[in-house]
C-alpha cells in the first residue's frame, strides 16, 4: 500500500464565526472572519437571519395595512420609517396633509432620531467596554420614549402617522414635556463629553479606526452619518427637502477623515441639530386639524413612485409600483443599513478583532432593517 504523503499545513489562518449569537453583533448579524492571529484577513457579513419578508407582505395588504410593518423594519427609527412610507403613499395618491400634522410628524421624527442616536451612543461605548454611559443615555432615552408613548401609544414600533395626517393630536403636556427634555439633554452633553469624548482610551479606540473615506462610502452607497463622517454633506432633509424641513433652520454636521471618531462626533452633533429642529417646530406649531379627510381605501393611480426621507441611519427610500388597485404591485424599501453594512468587507481586513466591534458599533447597523 502506497504511503500517502500528507501536505504539511502551511496556512496560518483560521476562520471565526462572529455571530449570529454574539454580544456585540447587534441582533443577528454573522460575520465570517478569516483571521491571522488576531488580524482580520477577510470579512464576509452573512445576512438573512432576521428576514421576515416585509416587501412581499406589502403586496398582499392594503396600503393602510402595511403601516405597522413600516416601523418594524428599523425598530430604532420606526417613526421615521412610518413617516417615509406615509409620505410616499401621499405623494402617489396626491393627498394633502394639514400643516399641523406635518409639524407634529417632524417633531416626532426628530425625537425618534435622537432616541436612535442615544441608543447607538450607549451600545457603541459598551462595545468598547465602557458600560456606564450606556445606562446614562438609557436614562435620557427613557424620558424620550415616555413622551413618544404619550402621543403615539407605543414605545418602539410607532404607527403614529396616517395617510393625510397623524393618528392623534398632541396636547400641552406633550409640548411642555418635550421642552423639558430639550433642556435636560442639553444639560447632559457635558456629562457625555467628560465621560466619553475626552476619555483618552476612547479616543485611542476610535481615532483612525475603520476609516471609510469619501470614495469608499460613495462606492458602497453608504449614507447617513457614515457618508457625512467622510466629509460629504449629504442629507435627504436638505438635498431633497420634504415635509416642513425647508422652513426650519439646521446644519448638516460633517467629519473629515471618516474614522469612527468622526462618525461619533457627527452623530452627537446631529442630536444637537435635532434639538434645534424640534425647538423651532414647537415654536411654529400651527393650529388646525391633524388629519385631512382621505378616502377609506387609498387607490393611487398607476405608475412608479419614489420617495426618500433621512432616517437615523441614512437615506431611506420607498419605491412603490402601483397598478391602480388598493394593493401595491411592488414595494421596495431602499434601506440605509444595507449599503452601510457592505462596506465592512473593505474596511475590516487588516484590522484587529477588537476593532471589529468598534467599527461595527460606529457604523450603527440594524440587522432587521438589512434583512427586512
Amino acid at each position, binding site marked *: 500500500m502506497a504511503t500517502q504523503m500528507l501536505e504539511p499545513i502551511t496556512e496560518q489562518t*483560521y476562520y*471565526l464565526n462572529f455571530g449570529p449569537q*454574539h*454580544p*456585540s453583533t447587534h441582533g443577528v448579524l454573522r460575520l465570517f472572519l478569516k483571521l491571522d492571529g*488576531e488580524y482580520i484577513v477577510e470579512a464576509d457579513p452573512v445576512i438573512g437571519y432576521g428576514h421576515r419578508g416585509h416587501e412581499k407582505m406589502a403586496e398582499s395588504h392594503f396600503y393602510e395595512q402595511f403601516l405597522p410593518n413600516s416601523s418594524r423594519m428599523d425598530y430604532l427609527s420606526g417613526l421615521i420609517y412610518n413617516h417615509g412610507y406615509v409620505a410616499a403613499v401621499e405623494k402617489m395618491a396626491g393627498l394633502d396633509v394639514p400643516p399641523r400634522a406635518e409639524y407634529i410628524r417632524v417633531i416626532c421624527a426628530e425625537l425618534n432620531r435622537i432616541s436612535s442616536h442615544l441608543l447607538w451612543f450607549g451600545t457603541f*461605548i*459598551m*462595545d*468598547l*467596554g*465602557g*458600560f*456606564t454611559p450606556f*445606562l*446614562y443615555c438609557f*436614562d435620557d432615552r427613557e424620558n424620550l420614549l415616555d413622551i413618544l408613548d404619550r402621543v403615539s401609544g407605543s414605545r418602539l414600533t410607532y404607527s403614529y402617522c396616517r395617510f393625510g395626517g397623524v393618528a392623534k393630536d398632541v396636547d400641552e403636556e406633550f409640548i411642555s414635556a418635550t421642552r423639558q427634555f430639550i433642556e435636560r439633554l442639553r444639560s447632559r452633553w457635558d456629562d457625555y463629553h467628560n*465621560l*466619553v469624548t475626552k*476619555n483618552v*482610551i*476612547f479616543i*485611542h*479606540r476610535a481615532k483612525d479606526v475603520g476609516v471609510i473615506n469619501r470614495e469608499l462610502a460613495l462606492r458602497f452607497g453608504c449614507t447617513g452619518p457614515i457618508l457625512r463622517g467622510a466629509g460629504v454633506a449629504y442629507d435627504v432633509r436638505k438635498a431633497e427637502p420634504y415635509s416642513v424641513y425647508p422652513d426650519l433652520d439646521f446644519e448638516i454636521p460633517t467629519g473629515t477623515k471618516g474614522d469612527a471618531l468622526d462618525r461619533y462626533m457627527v452623530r452627537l452633533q446631529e442630536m444637537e441639530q435635532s434639538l434645534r429642529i424640534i425647538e423651532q417646530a414647537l415654536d411654529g406649531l400651527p393650529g388646525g386639524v391633524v388629519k385631512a379627510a382621505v378616502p377609506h381605501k387609498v387607490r393611487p393611480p398607476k405608475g412608479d413612485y419614489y420617495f426618500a426621507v433621512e432616517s437615523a441611519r441614512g437615506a431611506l427610500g420607498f419605491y412603490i409600483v402601483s397598478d391602480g388597485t388598493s394593493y401595491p404591485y411592488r414595494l421596495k424599501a431602499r434601506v440605509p443599513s444595507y449599503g452601510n453594512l457592505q462596506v465592512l468587507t473593505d474596511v475590516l481586513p487588516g484590522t*484587529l*478583532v*477588537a*476593532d*471589529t*466591534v468598534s467599527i461595527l458599533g460606529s457604523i450603527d447597523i440594524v440587522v432587521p432593517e438589512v434583512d427586512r
Partner: protein
Amino acid sequence: MAAAWNSLVNVLGPDLTRIVIGLVGVLGLVQINALFLVWLERKVAAHIQLRIGPKEVGPFGILQTIVDGVKLVSKELITPRHVDRKLYMLAPVAIFLPVLLSFVVIPFSETLQIRDINVGLLIIFAFSTFNVLAILMGGWASNNKYSLLGAVRSVAQNVAYEIPLLLSLLSVLLWCNSLQMSEIVESQSRVWNVFWMPIAALIYLICATAETNRAPFDIPEAESELVAGFHTEYSGMRFALFFLAEYSNMLIVAAVATTLFFGGWKSPPFLGFLPVPGLVWFFLKTYALIFGVIWIRWTFPRLRFDQLMNFCWKIMIPAALLHLVVYAGIIKFIR
C-alpha cells in the same frame, strides 16, 4: 477542646498546625471576601450608573451573592465534547490554589500572619504567576477559538505586566531593605512608602489592575469581543471558581499594595491614638483600594490589545526601570 488542640499539635507539630489552621481560615476569608466583593462591586456599579443594585435578598441585598452562589453550585457542570478533559477540569482548581497560598505571608495584623518568612514577598509573586498557567490551561483545553484567543491575550498581558510590577516593588525592597512582610510594615511606622515613592505605587496599582484582568485591561475576557474569553466554556461551580479566583486575586493585590505602600495594619500616624485594632485598619485600606479599582472599571472603556502591550513595553517598563535606578541612587547616597 484543649485536648483536641494538644493532640493536633502533637501530630502535626506547631508549625504545620499553624499552617493548616491558617489555610482553613484563609479559605473562609476568600469565600467571604468574594461574597462581599461581588456585592460591593454590584452596588458601587449600580450607584455609579444611576441604579440601585441588588436590594431584595437580605438588608441592602447583601445576601444576593449567597443566593447566586447556591444557583451556581446547583448548575450542571457541562463538559463540551471536544475538550481536553483532564486540563479542562484541572484549570479551575489550578487557578484557585496559588491564590489561596499567597495569603500565607500576608500580615493581617501585628500577630495575625500565618508564616512570617524572610522571603515573603517573593512567595507571593511566585504563586501569583501561576495564574497565567491556569488561564492558558483553561483556554487551551476548552478547544474554542474565543477561549484560545482569550488565553493567548491573557498570557501575553500577564507576562508583560509582571515586569514593571516587580520592578516597582524592587525599589520598595531597597528602601525597606527587606523581603519580610512584617519588617516592611514596621519600616513604615512613621511615613508610609506611598509618600516616599508615589510613582512606584502608581505603577504597581496599574500593573496590578492589569494582572487581575480588570477593566480597562480586561481584554482576556472582553465581553463584547470574546464573549467571555478563556472561561467561555465553563459552567456551574467551575465558572464560580474562576470568579472566586478573580476576586481573591483582587484582594491579594490590594493587600500587597496595602502592606508595601500604605503601612499595612498600622494606623495612619496621626490617628494612632484611636483604639482601633490593626486588622480593621488593614481591611479598611485594602477595601478602599479595591473600591478605587471598581470605580475605574465602571468609568473607563477597554484598551485594545496592541495598545495595551505598547503601553506596557513603551511606558510602564521604562518608567519602572528609571524609577528603580533613580531610587537606587538616592538610597546609596543617603546611606
